[in-house]
C-alpha cells in the first residue's frame, strides 16, 4: 500500500511569493493534518481536516491556509513568504482520531 505522498519534495521560493504544497493520504484515511518542522525542533501543528472540514488550527498567521478535497487529498497554501517560513512541511493522515502516519515532507527554502 502506498503511504502518504507529498509533492514537491523540495522547493525554493523568494520572499513575498506564495507556495502550494500537496498531500495524498493513505487510501481510506479521511483525516489529514499539516505540521511545520524547523531544524532541530519537533513538528508544530498547523491544520487538521476531517471529511473536508477544518477540525483544528494551530498558532500560525492567516498567511497559512489549507483545504481538503472530496478525494481526501489536501493542499497547504502559504502567502507572502518570509525567510522564517523555511522548514520541512509534513502531512499526516489517519483513519479518524488515531495514529497519524507522516509523509516524507516538503523541504521549503525561502530566499
Amino acid at each position, binding site marked *: 500500500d502506498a503511504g*502518504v505522498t*507529498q509533492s514537491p519534495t523540495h522547493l525554493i521560493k523568494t520572499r513575498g511569493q506564495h507556495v502550494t504544497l500537496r498531500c495524498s493520504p493513505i487510501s481510506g484515511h479521511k483525516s489529514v*493534518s499539516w*505540521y511545520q518542522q524547523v531544524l*532541530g*525542533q*519537533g*513538528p*508544530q*501543528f498547523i491544520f*487538521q481536516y*476531517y471529511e473536508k472540514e477544518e*477540525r*483544528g488550527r*494551530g498558532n500560525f498567521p492567516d498567511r497559512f491556509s489549507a483545504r481538503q478535497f472530496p478525494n481526501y487529498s489536501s493542499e497547504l497554501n502559504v502567502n507572502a513568504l518570509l525567510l522564517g517560513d523555511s522548514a*520541512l512541511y*509534513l502531512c499526516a493522515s489517519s483513519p479518524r*482520531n*488515531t*495514529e*497519524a*502516519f*507522516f*509523509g*516524507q*515532507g516538503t*523541504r521549503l527554502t525561502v530566499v
Partner: protein
Amino acid sequence: EDQVTQSPEALRLQEGESSSLNCSYTVSGLRGLFWYRQDPGKGPEFLFTLYSAGEEKEKERLKATLTKKESFLHITAPKPEDSATYLCAVESAGANNLFFGTGTRLTVIP
C-alpha cells in the same frame, strides 16, 4: 497548556549498550502518547501509541512504557541502524492534533 520535554537531547551509545529515553509530559486529559522515529530529512515514522498508565508496547529492540507523568523508550542492545531522532508526542482530550517534544538524537557507534 500542553508540555512535552524529552531528555537527553542527544545520546551516544556503543552497539549493544542498552539505555532509555525519557519523555515527560503535562497535558489536560491524555488521549494518547505517541513515539516516532525520524531519520534526517525524512518524515517521522510511527512506532507506538500508549493510552493509559501502566501500558507497555514492544517492537524488536524497542519497548515503550507509560506512567501518569512520563514515558520511557527503552532500547535493548541497539545497533547502528537504530541511530535516529526519537520524537514523543501527546494528544490531549478535545484536541485534534499531536503536540511534539524536541526529540532525542540517538547515535549508536559500531
